[in-house]
């Protein structure tokens, strides 16, 4: 079983969302997801200042095996993207919950986080896969 930090929130489509600090959350894909995709070769990120809505396909993780859409787990405005992934997409593999983060979002509505899964809920969702 892969690592699922308890302090994060999750979407069933395998994105993780950090605790909000000043209304801003960090988004990435889970260790389980990177394991399914295999070695990452390109990551296409949204632009800073993009306005995104929950469920939009906002990024693409392209691995040796397949291209996979990444969906916005929350609504808001993109305030920062992980530019290191341009040269080092493998960070998504080696450090999915840390250095492999994708983008940061200023939330439109902080209560939206309550719709996401906790670690236990995500663990059971991937058991069903």
């Amino acid at each position, binding site marked *: 079983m892969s690592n699922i930090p308890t302090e994060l929130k999750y979407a069933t489509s395998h994105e993780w969302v950090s605790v909000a600090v000043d209304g801003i959350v960090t988004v990435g894909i889970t260790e389980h997801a990177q394991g399914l995709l*295999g*070695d990452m*070769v*390109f990551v*296409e990120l949204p632009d800073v200042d993009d306005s995104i809505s929950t469920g939009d396909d906002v990024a693409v993780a*392209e691995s040796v095996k*397949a291209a996979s859409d990444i969906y916005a787990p929350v609504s808001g405005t993109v305030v920062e993207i992980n530019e290191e992934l341009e040269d080092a997409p493998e960070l998504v*593999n080696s450090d999915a919950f840390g250095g492999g983060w994708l983008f940061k979002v200023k939330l439109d509505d902080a209560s939206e986080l309550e719709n996401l899964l906790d670690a236990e809920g995500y663990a059971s969702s991937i058991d069903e896969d």
Partner: protein
Amino acid sequence: MSNKTVLHAKHLASGAKMVDFYGWEMPINYGSQIEEHHAVRTDAGMFDVSHMTIVDVQGTDAKDFLRRLVINDVAKLTTAGKALYTGMLNEEGGVIDDLIIYFFSDTNYRLVVNSATRVKDLAWMNKQAVGFDLTITERPEYGMIAVQGPEAIAKVATLLSPEESAAVEGMKPFFGVQVGDLFIATTGYTGENGYEIIVPESAAEDFWQKLLDAGVAPCGLGARDTLRLEAGMNLYGLDMDETVSPIAANMAWTISWEPTDRDFIGRDVLTAQKAAGDQPKLVGLVLEEKGVLRSHQVVVTEFGNGEITSGTFSPTLGHSVALARVPRSVKVGDVVEVEMRKKLVKVTVTKPSFVRNGKKVF
């Protein structure tokens, strides 16, 4: 149904991620397929290919049978141990499988065919063998390990006996030799130097462990695919199948047209196709910008559409490459377009070969 090779426990011990490959539980990678790819291009890596099917064809009519069965001509083989790559066609000129044939004598040949096509290959061979005096014997009691890379031969040498070393000393590419328990061949599927070694099941685990101890990296099917694609080698089921002519699959070089009275299966169809000149062809495609070309994407050219048969990210080159079947009028150097994720992206047409011996070749 899930078959396991004799090396299954060794894969698990090395942390392999196992997947189903046409009924065989095989390693896809041992952590990172890109690192495994680089190990083969820069040092030495090894693959368990024990799932592949070894078939010995022996008897008075072995030579005549194979001259009818495959599109290349085994009569060209006169030096013991010499190998030949070729295809086996149905009556409609479609590729049933591609294979390697090792020649030992006019009455003794060894064939290595794909595992995914094992059942139909054996059925076809047995059907065609009616009336010929020979035996067709599958050899499942062997394991097979491919050791590939610039340091592969030197690393294998450290675990050979003096007698085995002498037998492989100076062996040219595309030869095989039986020495003691081992059958050692200078063949492979990566575009690097190295060996494919057939070893009795009882000795396979020990041999694999000695290779690990000699610093040979275990590599999975993921790296095997990116390596063969960089080398421009076909994968059966993607780049060709029973509906595809060898002329449309970069296999024309494996057809022996001379002598003209050799009546191989599919000859009339191929002759007509060649005269008509209307078969599509397999080319290489190179995408220098972001993105990865994938199987079944549509290729748009001024002469009509084609299709990517296999595509991947090339770890050696740092961008994507693909094999594609396109109209014959498309030329090397042309810029064509591929439909990727709803957009048309420009790609350059190359010969269907990208990397050999660690170096870019287009």
